[in-house]
């Protein structure tokens, strides 16, 4: 479904990603792990056209992602969440989710100004769909609340709802459980599992919480200093001495 091949990104003298290659099969969940600064988020940014790699290719269902304009990625069916939340703080929770469905709407500027009947219809549809997603994630009571001022854990769910509003086939989660308490991590893991099943999405997850990654993912890719150092099923990765060394260091 997603093929990343030979991605290299340099920021000045620093090579953030160095020839990283892996594939994601449809319906699977792939975990992306590695110590801080390994290039995980940079890789996500390449997938969503936030940054352009110096070399390499990314193809999604045969489409060359790197040839797309940044705003066109959502239309392809790729959605993501952000490491430190990327919500719209002054919009309500419902509006946040409705912006997620932006790529599914057609209303242009002129039609909107005149509020043609089809604009009303589309608005009603988007609103219903957003409300449905909010109910699904247990956020319906907060629909009219501005996104700022809500607890972090709740905002994580709002962001997930917004990403699902894109109607993604590929969902990229950037540290979905960082900053959550122990109990919340469990809840969120259940949520992600059920969402994955119900919405039939393929997942790529960047996360440091090993319990979360190992419980969720079918395959794990480990990066270190921009290089892929290991790839395989979670249980192999957990025992891989190279991974252990990169993450924990080894006694001298």
């Amino acid at each position: 479904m997603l093929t990343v091949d030979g991605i290299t990104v340099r920021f000045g003298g620093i090579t953030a990603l160095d020839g990283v290659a892996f594939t994601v099969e449809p319906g699977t969940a792939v975990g992306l792990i590695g110590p801080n600064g390994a290039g995980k988020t940079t890789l996500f940014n390449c997938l969503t056209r936030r940054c352009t790699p110096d070399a390499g290719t990314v193809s999604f269902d045969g489409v060359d992602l790197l040839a797309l304009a940044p705003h066109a990625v959502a239309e392809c069916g790729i959605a993501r969440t952000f490491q430190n939340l990327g919500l719209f703080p002054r919009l309500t929770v419902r509006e946040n989710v409705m912006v997620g469905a932006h790529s599914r709407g057609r209303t242009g500027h002129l039609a909107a100004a005149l509020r043609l009947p089809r604009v009303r219809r589309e608005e009603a549809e988007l609103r219903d769909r957003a409300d449905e997603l909010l109910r699904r994630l247990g956020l319906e009571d907060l629909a009219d609340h501005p996104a700022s001022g809500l607890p972090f854990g709740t905002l994580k769910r709002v962001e997930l709802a917004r990403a699902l509003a894109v109607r993604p086939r590929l969902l990229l989660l950037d540290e979905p459980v960082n900053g959550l308490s122990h109990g919340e991590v469990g809840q969120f893991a259940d949520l992600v599992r059920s969402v994955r099943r119900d919405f039939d999405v393929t997942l790529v997850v960047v996360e440091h919480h090993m319990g979360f990654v190992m419980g969720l993912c079918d395959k794990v890719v480990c990066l270190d200093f921009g290089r892929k150092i290991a790839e395989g099923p979670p249980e192999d990765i957990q025992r891989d001495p190279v991974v252990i060394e990169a993450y924990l260091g080894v006694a001298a």
Partner: protein
Amino acid sequence: MRSMTAVLDRTRHGRFALAALLAAAVAMAVPFYFAPFQVFQLTMVLVYAVALAGLNLLVGFGGQISLGHGAFFAAGAYTAAIMLDRFDTGHLATLPVAAAACFLLGLGFGVPALRLRGLYLALVTLSLAVFLPPLLKRLEAVTGGSMGLTVEKPQPPAWSGLAEDQWSYFVVLAVSAVALLVARNLLRSRVGRALLAVRDNESAAEVMGVRLSLHKTFAFAWSAMFAGVAGCLYTWVIGFVSPDSFSFVLSITLLAGLVVGGLASLYGPLLGAAFVMYVPSVAQDLSEAAPGVVFGLLIIAVMFVAPTGLAGLASRAGGAVARRRAGAAASDRSSVAEPPPESTSEPSAPRTPVDPESVEAEPVGAPPRTEKE
């Protein structure tokens, strides 16, 4: 649950319709109760409200800034004046032309706005406002130079039995009502939400599929168009344009009016327009020597009392009352030994209706927040 929200929606709609009807009735009755000069002042409030509504799209909802809207206002005013003076086209024809011309002008200026933000954008737009009046003076053959152009005001048809000022008022009322409705329509759509999303978080908006260049330039274009329409109405009402009516102070007054009225509020432009129209004359009464100083001090006073503008004042007061009540209720509950809220992900967290206006008190031209990547 569903039917209940439906009923709630309907009562809310009903109440809104009632308020709109009442406002319309008052607006219709006003010119028959006031003296011609007061009617003229009210007409000018409506004219400024249109310009402010446009500026609001750009600054309040779009998160950009313009110190050059006086130039678009002037462009609209001169388009109308030249058409009336040289080509004798009749008033109605000038409106779409002024609107279209300023829309295109705004589209052109929206392109640099894509690359500039904050203070830089403010400077570039300010230069537009500074440079236009001398240009108008230069192009004497078309614009009448420093002397300006005197044109005919719209005359009331005989059947109406209205005086000239009353007729102007009604014409402007109709145009401004449509303009404000268009602004509201834009905001309550996919397009408007995209604009708000870009203001709040550009890169997240783009990831959601919002095409930044399109929405940002169009915000500029719409905004300029509203200013142009207001300028056109100005020509109709005043019947005279000259370069000195559109100095860069106009641009700054417009921005000040918008901030005082309330950024990102639908009726803020009306309040701001009233402020811009009436406060200078109040200032004149208070101190004949230095009305500008009094005007400035009054702006400071309003911003001190109501940092979210006059429009935000009511909802802020309401929010404060609700918070106090919710706070009292919470302390009542916690005294009945409720376990501390352990899981913060519970949706029951702060249900206090935090008023959205209070978060809008971001300084104009503040760099948009971008999340670290």
